[in-house]
Each structure stands twice: as C-alpha cells, then as structure tokens.
C-alpha cells in the first residue's frame, strides 16, 4: 500500500510540529521559548558624517562610556534613506537620556567641534539573549551579541523525538503502577547517546498513613521517584523495588537496573552525561538531588501541584551560585498525543 508510507511521513511531520510547539524549556532566562519583546530605554543620538566616526568614537568611549548597562549597543549605526540609497549617513549614540541631563554642561564643551544635533531614540534596554532576539531587536538599534552561558540552543528534531519517546515510556511506566488514590510517579535515567535506560524508580511516598490523632509514620515520606531512581543507579545490585508485581512492571523498561549498563564508561562519575525523565516536575529535594548528581538534563511531562516546583519555581538548575547548571524541559506528552489525534480526524 503505497499511500501508507506517505501517511506515515505526514504523521512524522505532525509530531515534529507538535513537539516544536509544545516542548518548553523551564525556568530559563526567558529567551529560550522564542524571542521576547524588547524592553526599551531612551538615549541621546546624533547624525554624523562618516568621516567623523573614527575621531568621535574614541572621544565618546572616554567621555561617555556605555558601561551603565548599555554595553550591548553598537556605538554607531548606518541610516540609509529610502529615497537615495547612495547617501549613507551615520548615527552615533551618546548616552542615556538622564545621563545627558547630568553631563551636558561639561560634555557639550568637549563635543562642540563635532557640531552634533541631538535627538532622542528608543533602544533595547537589555542585551539580547538569543540570535532571534538579536535579529528582532536589531531593528531598533544594532546590537552586540555575546553567545555566552545564556545562549540557548534549541533541541534538534531528532532530540525532540527522542525526548518525546522517553517521556512517553516514563509516563506509561507511571500509569502502569498507579494504585488509586496514590498518583504514581516514575523516574528513569537515560544514557542519551545510546538511548539506554540505566536506572528507574517509582514514587512510594504517598503510602504513608496519617492517623486522626495528628501523628503519622515517617518511613516513606521521602521515597520520591527521583530519589529512588538515584539510589537504584548508585547501587545497581540492590533493586529498590522489592514488590514482585512492581518488579515485573519495572522490567518492561529497566531490566538493566540490576547490572550497571554497558553503555557507561568505567569511571562514570555520579550521573554526569545522563538525562532524567520524570512523569511530573520534581520537588525541590529531588531537583537538588539531581543537581548534586550532576545530571545533564531533566525532562518532565507536567507540573506538580503538590510541591514547590524545583525548576519552575525554585529555579535550582539556573542558580549561578551553585556548582552545576543544566536544562529542564516540559514535554507534555498527553497534550501532544491529543493534538496528534485531533489532526487525524
């Protein structure tokens, strides 16, 4: 049936589109989910003759340096007039509006010989954090872009598809062990290059009894899926899931949890280079546990109404004071699947 192949590739395209639309980075600088609208501020500019630029730029960088949070602005921009493409004029930025109010007495004296005609312009007030923002905001004023630690490289289509597949399987694992009224949570550690699942863990914290006199047992309170997954990875010979039925469920995905996976180097240090998939956003304890374990990336399928979100609220993974930083993604598999279904009908 030749048209089946076509349909299949259509499905692939639809999934690709749905993933690009629905997958979001969580708790980042703000630019990772598409360019933001620029915040603007008012600066003083003047048109100049092209031959003036080489003399004026050094004078201004001495007199009015743009080191007050405007170092992302290029000093000079080209202004070409629509009517006459050959006549190119330059415009030079002096400083912020309010700085000029303070400095105009002494600065005008130094700049007198340049015959400047001052005007006001609105320019981006902050540095762009992505190439898209550089392009979009550059219409206001040409900008300097330093692709530093903030630069976000969006996941490739192949990466997105891998993330979706691992997230789907993790969600299925969670649902397969759901024991109402406990909402089940599952976490798995994946070696991204080989796609191998190297450990998994289930949430057992919901099963503590609260008695009417206000006392409670404490024995499983911290038994969250991520914590169990991390200890299962640390001691691969001791399965953390003792219940036989759960063990069976686990084996669907994680047979290798009993033996350290072959894809890992001998000198594997904690969880370096590994990705954690968890069916809902980890709490602060679990997020920090993943940070302590030097995880490469965390992916989850929904937010967590019960706990303070370790990434969306506490932003543990982007804290510059901590010794390790990583990316966290929301891959809402349920939403993506229903979008795929609605596309078909």
């Amino acid at each position, binding site marked *: 049936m030749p048209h089946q192949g076509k349909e299949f590739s259509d499905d692939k395209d639809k999934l690709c589109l749905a993933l690009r639309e629905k997958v979001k980075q969580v708790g980042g600088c703000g630019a990772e989910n598409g360019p933001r609208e620029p915040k603007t501020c008012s600066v003083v500019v003047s048109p100049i003759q092209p031959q003036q630029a080489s003399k004026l730029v050094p004078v201004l960088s001495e007199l009015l340096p743009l080191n007050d949070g405007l170092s992302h602005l290029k000093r000079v921009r080209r202004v070409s007039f629509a009517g006459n493409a050959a006549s190119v004029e330059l415009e030079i930025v002096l400083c912020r509006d309010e700085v000029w109010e303070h400095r105009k007495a002494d600065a005008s004296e130094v700049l007198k010989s340049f015959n400047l005609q001052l005007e006001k312009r609105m320019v981006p007030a902050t540095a762009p954090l992505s190439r898209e923002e550089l392009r979009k905001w550059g219409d206001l004023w040409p900008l300097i872009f330093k692709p530093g630690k903030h630069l976000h490289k969006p996941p490739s289509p192949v990466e997105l598809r891998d993330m979706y597949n691992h997230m789907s399987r993790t969600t299925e694992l969670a649902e397969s062990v759901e024991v109402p009224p406990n909402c089940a949570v599952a976490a798995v550690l994946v070696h991204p290059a080989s796609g191998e699942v190297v450990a998994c863990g289930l949430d057992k914290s919901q099963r503590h009894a609260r*008695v009417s006199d*206000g*006392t*409670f*047992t*404490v*024995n*499983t*309170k*911290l038994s969250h899926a991520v*914590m169990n997954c*991390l*200890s299962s990875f*640390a*001691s691969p010979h001791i399965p953390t899931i003792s219940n036989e039925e759960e063990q069976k469920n686990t084996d669907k995905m994680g047979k290798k949890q009993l033996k350290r996976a072959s894809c890992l180097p001998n000198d594997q240090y*904690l969880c370096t280079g590994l990705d954690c998939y968890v069916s809902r956003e980890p*709490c*602060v*304890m679990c997020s*920090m*546990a993943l*940070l*302590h*374990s*030097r995880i490469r990336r965390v992916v989850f399928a929904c937010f967590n109404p*019960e*706990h*303070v979100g370790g990434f969306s*609220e*506490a932003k*543990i993974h982007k*804290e510059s*004071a*901590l*010794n390790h930083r990583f990316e966290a993604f929301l891959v809402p598999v349920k939403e993506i699947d229903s979008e795929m279904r609605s596309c078909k009908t």
Partner: protein
Amino acid sequence: MFNSRAQASHSQIRLNARAMEVALYEARKALERGEVPVGCVLVTEDGETVATGSNRTNERGNATSHAELVAFEELSNVKKMFKKGELTLYVTCEPCIMCTAAIVQMEVVGHIVYGCSNPRFGGCGSVRSLDLYRGRPDGHVPTIQSGVEAATAIHLLGEFYNRTNPHAPKPKKRRVKR
C-alpha cells in the same frame, strides 16, 4: 518567673551543647571514612536521641546520602508515630537545599540547630531560604538557630580539605579558581 525562664534557657543551652557534641562526633566519623565531615542527630523534646546520621556520599556513590537524609533513613526504621514539629535536628553545617526541602516534607522537625553556614549549597538562608515553603499546605517549616559550635564544624571541614588536597598550602589560589 524570670528565674524559671533563665533556667529553661540554661538547660536549653546545655541540651544544645550536648546534642551538637553528638552531631560533631558523627561528623568526625565521616571524616575518618574520607567523607566531607558533616554529622547530625534528631532529638526529642526531652533530649532523647532517636536517630543519627553522617555523610556517606562517597561510600555509597550516591550524591544524595547527606547526613540529614541518612538520619531520616534511620528514623524511618523507628517503629513509632510522630507529631508535626516534634523533633529538633542538630547538624554541624547548614543543611543544603535538598536536605532543607526534605526536612520540610518530613514535617517531624520543628527546629533546626546548625553550626557553620553552607555558602555553596545552603538551603536555610545561604543560596535559598525557608521562605520558599511558607504558605504551602504541605510540609512543616521549622525555626532555625545557627552558629552553635560553628568553629569546631569549620575546623573539621578544614581538616578534610587539607587532607584530600595535597596542594592545600596555597589556599589563596584555590579561592581564586572558585
């Protein structure tokens, strides 16, 4: 009345010193095993020890085996029911963000007493604070007392870093790197 309050605080100070001595003993045991020396103890209102813990991250190859979580593991084997905020946690160093979140979720700890602060990972004011958990339905936010036997805790940590780093006599250089 004043007298009895003064007495209570005196006995409190004595209890603090005694409990912190147990936590420091746990920290020293961790140091002997080649771990970052942090130790802790969970104590009831009457001063009875219900669980102790010391750092076991290297031993277990698990970065989450901090002293506090090790103590909670021990506590979970205690066949007893607890009330909210019933216990005091004495720990030689400010709990990290992970352990602070664990303490809040456990609900049994009403009061944290710690020695030195933890500027790199601290969850009780250094990198994050307990404000993160206030006004939430779940968990119990404890009160904090800091600086109890801080000098001894810092001295122990210093001993660890001197021991493991053969180039330690140049502390200035290391600080610049970080």
